[in-house]
C-alpha cells in the first residue's frame, strides 16, 4: 500500500477531479447562460437552470472536501498557499459566493418571471470568472515561484499574475465549458436545443485543444520544473496519448452525434488533464519548497482522515446515487422523460 501522505494527497486529487466533472460543469453551464444567443436564448437559460438547480450545492461540496482534507492533512501547505495566493483565493471566494447566491435568488424567481434577471447575469458572470481563478491558483501552485519562507514572512505574492498560471485559468474555463455543453445535450429532447449545445461543445473543444498546446509551451518558460515533470516522466507519453485521444474522440463523437461517447471522452479528457497536473506536481504540494511528506500531519491524523473519507463515501455515495437517479434519470440512465414533469 502507498504511504499515508500519498493516499491523503491522492484523495485531494480525486476530490478535485470529481469536483471538476460535476461542479466544474455547473460553472460551465453558467458560462453558457452568459453566452446564450439566438432565438432559443431564453430556452437555453431555462434548461441550464433546471439542469443545475437540484445538484449544484452537493456538487460544490467536493471543493470543500478537498480544502478540508488539505488543511487537516497538510496544514503547512494550506497556510503557505493561503498567504501567498491571498488575492486570487479571495477573488475566487467572491466568485463562489456570487455564483451560488445569485443562482439561488435567480432560480427562486424563475418560475414566475423566467428569462434573464439581474441575478441571472451575476450568476453567469461569476460562473465565468471563478473557473479562471481556480485554474490560475492551480497554475501558480505548479509554477515553482511560491517560496514558503517568503510567503510566511512577507505575505501575498503576485506570482499568479503570469502567463502560465493565467493560461491554466483559461484552460480550466474551456474544460468546464466543454463538459457543460456536452452534458447539457442530454438534458433535453428538443432537437434544436441539442444542436445548440452540440455546436457550443464543438467550439469549446477547439478552445480546449488550443490551450492544451499553449499551456505546456508557457510552462516551459514559466514553470520549468513542472514542465520537466509533465513531459519528461515515464508516464508522460501515456498521459499525452490519453488526453489527446480523449480530446479527439470527443470532437469526432460530437461531429458524428454519438453523444454518449462524446460525454465519456469529455469527462476522460478533464480527468486526465487534472491527473496529469497531480502526477507532475508529485512529490510536491507547492513547488519547490513543500512536499507531500514534509507538510503531512502526524500519521494518526492522516489515518483518521482516510477512515472518515471511506465512511463518508459509504454513506454518501448511495445518497448521491439517489439524487442523480431522481433528477438526472433521463440524462444519465436514458429513460424516456415523463411528460408530466418539467
Amino acid at each position, binding site marked *: 500500500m502507498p504511504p499515508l501522505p500519498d493516499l491523503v494527497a491522492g484523495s485531494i486529487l480525486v476530490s478535485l477531479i470529481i469536483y471538476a466533472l460535476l461542479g466544474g460543469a455547473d460553472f460551465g453551464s453558467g458560462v453558457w447562460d452568459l453566452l446564450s444567443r439566438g432565438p432559443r436564448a431564453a430556452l437555453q437559460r431555462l434548461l441550464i437552470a433546471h439542469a443545475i438547480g437540484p*445538484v449544484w450545492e452537493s456538487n460544490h*461540496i467536493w471543493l470543500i472536501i478537498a480544502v478540508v482534507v488539505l488543511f*487537516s492533512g497538510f496544514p503547512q501547505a494550506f497556510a503557505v498557499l493561503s498567504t501567498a495566493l491571498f488575492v486570487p483565493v479571495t477573488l475566487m471566494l467572491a466568485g463562489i459566493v456570487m455564483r451560488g447566491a445569485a443562482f439561488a435568488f435567480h432560480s*427562486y424567481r424563475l418560475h414566475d418571471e423566467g428569462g434573464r434577471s439581474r441575478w441571472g447575469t451575476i450568476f453567469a458572470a461569476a460562473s465565468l470568472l471563478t473557473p479562471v481563478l481556480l485554474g490560475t491558483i492551480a497554475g501558480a501552485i505548479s509554477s515553482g515561484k511560491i517560496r514558503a519562507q517568503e510567503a510566511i514572512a512577507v505575505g501575498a505574492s503576485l506570482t499568479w499574475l503570469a502567463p502560465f498560471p493565467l493560461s491554466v485559468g483559461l484552460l480550466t474555463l474551456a474544460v468546464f465549458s466543454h463538459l457543460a455543453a456536452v452534458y447539457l445535450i442530454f438534458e433535453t429532447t428538443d432537437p434544436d436545443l441539442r444542436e445548440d449545445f452540440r455546436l457550443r461543445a464543438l467550439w469549446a473543444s477547439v478552445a480546449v485543444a488550443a490551450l492544451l498546446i499553449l499551456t505546456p509551451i508557457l510552462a516551459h518558460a514559466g514553470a520549468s520544473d513542472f514542465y520537466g515533470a509533465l513531459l519528461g516522466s515515464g508516464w508522460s507519453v501515456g498521459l499525452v496519448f490519453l488526453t489527446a485521444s480523449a480530446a479527439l474522440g470527443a470532437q469526432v463523437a460530437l461531429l458524428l452525434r454519438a453523444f454518449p461517447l462524446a460525454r465519456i471522452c469529455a469527462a476522460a479528457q478533464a480527468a486526465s488533464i487534472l491527473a496529469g497536473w497531480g502526477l507532475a506536481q508529485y512529490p510536491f504540494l507547492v513547488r519547490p519548497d513543500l512536499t507531500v511528506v514534509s507538510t503531512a500531519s502526524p500519521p494518526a*491524523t492522516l489515518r483518521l482522515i482516510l477512515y472518515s473519507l471511506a465512511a463518508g463515501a459509504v454513506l454518501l455515495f448511495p445518497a448521491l446515487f439517489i439524487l442523480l437517479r431522481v433528477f438526472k434519470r433521463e440524462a444519465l440512465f436514458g429513460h424516456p422523460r415523463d411528460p408530466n414533469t418539467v
Partner: protein
Amino acid sequence: MTELLLARAQMAMFFAFHIVFAVAGMGMPVLMVIAEGAHLRTGKPVFLELARRWARGTAVLFAVGAVSGTVLSFELGLLWPRFMAFSGGIIGLPFALEGFAFFAEAIFLGIYLYGWGRVPPLAHLLSGVAVALGGVLSGVLVVAANAWMNSPTGFLLLDGKPTAVDPIAAMLNPAWPTEAIHMTLAAFAAAGFAVAGIHAYKLLRDRENLFHRHALAIAIAVGGAASVLQPVSGDFNARFAARNQPAKLAAMEGQWRTERGAPLRIGGLPDAARETTRFAIEIPRGLSLLAFHDPDAEVKGLQAFPRDERPPPAPVHLAFQFMVACGTTLAAVSLVGAWLARKDREGLYRPRFLRAVVACSPLGILAVEAGWAVTELGRQPWVIRGVMRTSDAATPVSGLALPFAFFSALYLALGVAAAWLLRREVAQSPSFPRGDGILRNEGGQE
C-alpha cells in the same frame, strides 16, 4: 485600525453573517418536516402548503449559508494561516466530518426541494428528516472545533509545535458537549421564534387564516421548547466556564476581585481603568451560587490574571447580559404560551400574545450573535486558550481593509436581497380561511 483588528473584524463579520443562515439551516428543516409529517398524518392540504413554503424559504437561506460557509473554510487560512498551520492536523477531523454532514444535508435538500411528486411521499419526508439531521450534525461538529479552541486537548506542546497529536481526543474536548447543546438549542429557539413572529404578524391582520395558525403553533412549539430548555444548558456552560475558563467567566460577570460569596451583577458597566463594575444591581452571593452551586464558593476575578491575559470585560459583560436578557424573555414568553394553550390552541391567537411573539421575533437571532461575541471575545487574547495568541495567528498579508470593505458590501447586498425575496414570499400568504368550527377548506383540494 491595525491589520490585526481588521483581520478580527473581518472574521467577526463573516461569522456574524454566516451564523444567521447556519441557524436557519439547523432550525428550518425541523419546522418543514413537522409540517409535512402533519400533512401525511392528517391529509390536510394546509400542512402541505406550509411545508412547501417553509422549504422555499429554507432553499434561499441554505444557499446563502452554503456559500458563506465555504468562504469561512478558506478564510481560516487566509486570515489565520499560523493558527491553521498549528491546529489543522489536530482539529481537522470534525471539519472533515462536518463536510460529510453538510454533504448529506445538501443532497437530501436537493431531493426535498425538487422532489415534490417525484419521490414517494414517505421517502420525501425522510429526505427532510435527513436534511434536519445533517443540519444539526454539521452545526454540532463545527462547534467541536470552536470548543477545542476554548479547551485545547489532544496534543502536547514541544518547542512551540504540537506533538503526540490525538485528533479524537481533540474532538472530544471537554467543552464540546455543553457548547454543542447550547448552540443547537439556540438555533431552534432563534429559528422557531423568527418564524413564529412572521406568522403572528400575519395573524394580527387575518386572525382566522388557518395557514398562519398552524404555522404559528408549530414554530412556537419548537422555538418555545428550546427556549425553556436553554437556561438549563446555559447553567452547564457557565459552570464549565467557571471551572475551566475563569477569565472568561470573570469578564462575563464583570467580576474584578477574587472573592468568596461573589454577587451576581445585573446590568452594569465594567470600568477597566478603575477595575470595577459600576451601576450594576448586585444580588449577594448570586454568582457563587450560580457558578458553583455554593453561595460561599470562591470566584476568580479578572485581577487574578495578568493584564495581557484578560479578555475585554466591557463588551463581554454587555454581550453576555444582552444574551441572557433575550433568552430569559423568550423562555418567559414560551411559558406564557404554554399556559395560554393549556386547554386548546385558541389561547395562542389572542392579539396580546401575538404582539408579544412579534416583538420576540428577532430576539433569538440577537441572542445567538451576542452569545458568539461572548465566547469569542471572552477567549481573547487567545485564539487557542493558553497556547496561541490571536496576534500570533494572523496573516502577514497587509491591506486587509480592501477585502473587508468588499465582502461587507457584498454580504450586505446578499442579506438585503434574501430578506427582500423572503418578504415577497410572506406578503403573498395563502388563504386558508377557517369556518365556524368547520374546516371548510381542508381535505377538499390537493
